[in-house]
């Protein structure tokens, strides 16, 4: 399942995948995999992403029941 919420939040902040990856101290490929839904991040990384994008965990990672 693609994480479109995270992608749009990143775009709203005008950050590239590379820039977000640098802020969260991970590789660009990891951010790309999370957005594509290929990788489930740990809670630690989720929090780092939320802090970088000024969002809450619910806003970025709590999907609708139909999406799960």
């Amino acid at each position, binding site marked *: 399942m693609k994480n479109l919420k995270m992608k749009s939040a990143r775009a709203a902040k005008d950050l590239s995948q590379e820039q977000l990856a640098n802020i969260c101290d991970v*590789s660009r490929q990891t951010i790309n995999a999370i957005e594509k839904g290929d990788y489930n991040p740990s809670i*630690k990384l989720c929090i780092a992403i939320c802090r970088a994008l000024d969002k809450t965990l619910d806003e970025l990672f709590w999907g609708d029941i139909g999406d799960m």
Partner: protein
Amino acid sequence: MEKMFFIIILLVMALVIGLFVAIEAKYNETRYDEMQELARGRGFKMGYTCMIFVLVGYIFYDYIAPRSAIRLDTPCFALLVVMMGYVVFEVYCAAKNAYSPLGHSSKLMAITDLLLCACCLFNFFVSLLDQSDYIVDGVLVFKAIYVQLSLGIAFGLTGIMLLIRLLMNKREQED
């Protein structure tokens, strides 16, 4: 005296490796990419499984092959098993984007791998001309140049895999 010297060298090596691991664990703990670590773990598992398969496969071959068939001597076999595990691990890591640690240039790694591959293969082919008697009594006898050959293959495969991965990542970024 020589035996004592050998034990001292082993102890020193163990101490240095232990120190290296301790320092790495203390100072490098906070900076890692979890997806890469996961892929490396899976790569290790796959490499290990591959080594087991090669071991079992060769034992089976040794059992069923006729007496005239070529067999490997012990160092050759050990080299083959280790290299198979290493190549599977490296190729899997490259395929899963876990090839280079954070902050390292993957392009530089690919170029280094391919250069090392070229050096190893060149050295192998030059040495090949000077040597003979590879098969003695139906057994492929270990020569030091086989290490060059297997390193050349390993570096070549990982270098090519890295290049493919880099091209795929570039295309992904353009999309």
